[in-house]
């Protein structure tokens, strides 16, 4: 068991245990805080996959911004005080069945595909390669994403503003 395998299993455990706590915690603030080890574990998996730029962006945006946003909204609405409220609806057995089937299906299909060797070398300097990709072949996706950010910014401010 070399270092990479050890790191992978540790990070995978962090991700899955964190994810389990997110969906199972009765206390909503605990669930939101459990997002932090989950997302940090995913960032660690990106490091193992030689994706340093995506790692930094994942920590910066997911852990640093989205988790904070979720915590803010939980603290501003009743989620933090409704600890006696039932958090699970009546669809639990059906949901277990559906999710179980889906996961088994994924695992069976994905693990049977013979993923071949990579078609070329991985670029050494990640941010440069990503930047070039965004500006030359995928510039349309880049521009459209910027428009989506602008639209969602304006929309969120308008929707969440106090009346008058």
């Amino acid at each position, binding site marked *: 068991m070399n270092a990479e395998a050890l790191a992978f299993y540790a990070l995978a455990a962090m991700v899955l245990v964190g994810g389990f706590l997110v969906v199972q915690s009765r206390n909503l*603030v*605990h669930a939101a*805080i459990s997002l*932090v080890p989950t997302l940090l574990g995913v960032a660690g998996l990106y490091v193992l996959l030689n994706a*340093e*730029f995506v*790692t*930094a*962006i994942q*920590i*910066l945006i997911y*852990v*640093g*911004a989205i*988790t*904070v946003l979720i*915590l*803010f909204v939980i*603290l501003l609405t009743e989620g*933090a005080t409704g600890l006696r409220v039932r958090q699970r609806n009546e669809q639990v057995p059906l949901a277990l069945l559906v999710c179980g089937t889906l996961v088994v299906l994924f695992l069976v299909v994905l693990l049977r595909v013979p993923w071949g060797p990579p078609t070329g070398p991985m670029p050494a*300097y*990640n*941010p440069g390669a990503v930047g070039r990709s965004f500006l030359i072949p995928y510039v349309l996706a880049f521009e459209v994403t910027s428009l989506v950010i602008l639209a969602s910014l304006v929309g969120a401010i308008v929707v969440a503003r106090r009346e008058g």
Partner: protein
Amino acid sequence: MVVLAAVVFTFLAVGGPLFLVLAERKISAWIQARVGPKHVGPHGILQTVADTVKLLQKESIVPHRADVVLFTAAPVLVAVAALLDWIVIPFAPGVIVRDLNVGILYFAAVSSLTVIGILTGGWASNNKYSLLGGLRSAAQMVSYELPLGFSLLVVATLTGTLSTVRIVEAQPYPAHFYPSVIVAAVVFLIAATAEANRIPFDLPEAEAELVAGYFSEYTPMRFALFQLGEYGALLASSALFTTLFLGGWKGPFALPGVGPVVDGMVWFLLKTYAVVFFLMWVRWTYPRFRIDQLLNVSWKILLPVSMANLLVAGVLVVLG
């Protein structure tokens, strides 16, 4: 080299805040025309040691019906986040814990982890003043991350790399970049002051407003961890400012008789503590902003200025 860097990091990142607490008191005393602590040790040098011993022997209280797990975890998260970003700071040529090729982006990412610790600490104290302080502090830190990120981007644009070592090696910048660099440096200093919750941006922990803000309920050792995190973040931001804008470990002349490593470290420490002195000077000179003025400054002034600066920097790079 990595071992040396790790040792320096330990002394600087962990010992630094201890030294800074004392330095703050002495500098504030000097600015206010009085003498600071002078009884413990020669000129009061051992004051922090005495303070630490006092803190260690105080009773550690967890508030009634507070969330114990989160209450304990919050200061740990803040302190760890403040220490993790020292990994990419170069102390001397070749002395850096790890030269990540996404260095300054990693720094920005890890600094944003402190916000979660502060929010959690504010909520887990089961105290409405702590909660308000935590929410205000989180709002302030999140708002000032944007101008901070933009000024880091300006530096990355002008030097073409995200790695801290290569940024130090690329300085001094060519002359036609300087207007952009100066604006970026000023924005970075203001944003770093706000990120570290220092005056003039320290409303979340102002004594007269919210008791002590989000760490009202934290008794000694946990409070010490929060302070470690805060002063550690301040020192790390000063170190990054030195690395990005002041030339890192490069000095105007080589010190005689010592190797390049020690020479680099001396210049680096001198510059970093000069920046820290400047920030403390600012702290004891200005009054504090109100929360709405603070957020206004970030969103309506700093953000457009830094965005325009990035545009200008891009144009300058293209024009050569």
